[in-house]
């Protein structure tokens, strides 16, 4: 096991508001890492800092042993389904994936796009304009984009948001498959049952600070709780109090 994500006392402020306050944690290769926190806790900001979209005010971030500032190296190994859910509505799903495959410099573009469209279940709508897609279909397409470069580390910010139960299950199965292949998954979600079902290790943040981290069993033992919901509420409320 080795660290693929390492955050060392990272901080980020928006004006006078401290969104992230000396947050430190690490994720091991192959982990399915759940990242939890109440609304406004700093989950999305953390993902943006870890993926280089935002620059931290302080602290150091290493992705696969490269500083996050080394954009070219980092972009090659990460895939991100971000909170920004913007699409080029005039493009077809196929064109959209082909465009991102081109930006990543993928050589066998057509074959890659073909297999991803199959995996995300959009093959039959490949030639429809994205503007005509439902929210769930756009979410699948965004997920397809995030895995187009065959990433070693996948960051997901609420990946099943807007998906119907079948869509949620499809994405979860796909994530489990990717994780079994060795892809490290950094999974931010509000859906605790999803996290407890998928993740091997979790971290909980509140007010930009790390509240707890470890395996679900260890946290249950620590808080003397029987399920993840109780663990979450106990830890975040204790902090609020």
């Amino acid at each position, binding site marked *: 096991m080795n660290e693929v994500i390492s955050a060392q006392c990272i901080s980020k402020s928006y004006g006078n508001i401290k969104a992230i306050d000396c947050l430190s944690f690490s994720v091991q290769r192959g982990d399915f890492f759940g990242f939890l926190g109440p609304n406004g806790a700093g989950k999305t900001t953390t993902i943006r800092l870890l993926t280089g*979209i935002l620059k931290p005010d302080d602290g150091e971030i290493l992705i696969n042993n490269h500083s996050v500032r080394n954009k070219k190296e980092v972009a090659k190994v990460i895939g991100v389904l971000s909170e*920004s859910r*913007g699409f080029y509505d005039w493009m077809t799903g196929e064109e959209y994936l082909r465009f991102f495959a081109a930006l990543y410099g993928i050589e066998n573009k057509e074959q890659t796009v073909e297999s991803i469209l199959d995996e995300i279940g959009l093959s039959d709508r490949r030639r429809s304009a994205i503007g005509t897609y439902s929210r769930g279909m756009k979410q699948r397409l965004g997920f397809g984009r995030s895995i187009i470069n065959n990433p070693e580390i996948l960051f997901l910010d609420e990946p099943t948001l807007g998906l119907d139960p079948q869509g949620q299950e499809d994405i979860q199965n796909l994530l489990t498959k990717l994780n079994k292949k060795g892809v490290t998954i950094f999974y931010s979600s509000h859906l605790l049952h999803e996290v407890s079902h998928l993740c091997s290790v979790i971290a909980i943040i509140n007010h930009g600070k790390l509240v707890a981290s470890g395996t679900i069993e260890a946290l249950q033992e620590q808080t003397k709780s029987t399920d993840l919901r109780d663990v979450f509420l106990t830890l975040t409320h204790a902090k609020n109090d």
Partner: protein
Amino acid sequence: MLKMIKHIWLKDIKAEIYTWKSLVWLLVTSIIFSITSYLLLTNKELSLLDQTEMLWLFAKIIIGTILLIIIIDASALISNEFENETMENLFLTPLTTADFVLGKLLTSITIWGISYLISIPYMIVTSSGSGLTYAFMGYVAFFGTLAVLGFTMLIFALSFPYKSMKNTLTTSFVVLLALTIPALFSTTLKNNALAKIFGQINPIDNIFSSLDNVLVDYKTSIGQNLTYIIPVLVFCILMLFALLVSVRIFSRRGILKD
């Protein structure tokens, strides 16, 4: 780097076509040029104009129209990526800010190139028999390219901090008007010291004066127009500097608004 620029450029050109945006503008350009040249050649009072004066007027209309269209179009090129929340996903790939800006700049230049191609037949028809066809076409191409480059760089420099098409477009329009209106003042109005100084540094005024020099006074060599060309080049260099500063701040802060 070139490949990345090409991908951004191709995407934007496709967007211009698929969304009908630039096709509409190019149609508008053709209509404006058709009506203007038709009036210049057939209207009894306008046709009394000396042909060289007519060419000067038409050159100003071509550059003015195309600048207007480029400003509207370029204001959306970067701002829309922010407004439609597509910026973050672009910058999660190995794309650099330089690739991104150069791809967008190339799109703007392409739209100018196509608009210029549309204006060629009109320039040939109106300048027929004057012996100034090549000078007319050459100087419109030269000054048009510089003006489009300068204004596009200004627009991009504004797009990064504003992150809004409406604000970028409004500010660019104000700058265009502030530079164009004094350039259209009569000689009497330009006679005081302040107006003279502003006229000497105003790129639009210098473009119009140089076209006057070429088309009305037959001073067609570069050397004879250098005093007008230099301020336009200085404007472009200043806009490049503004763009570099804007891009640097953007890269340092991270791509999202703090």
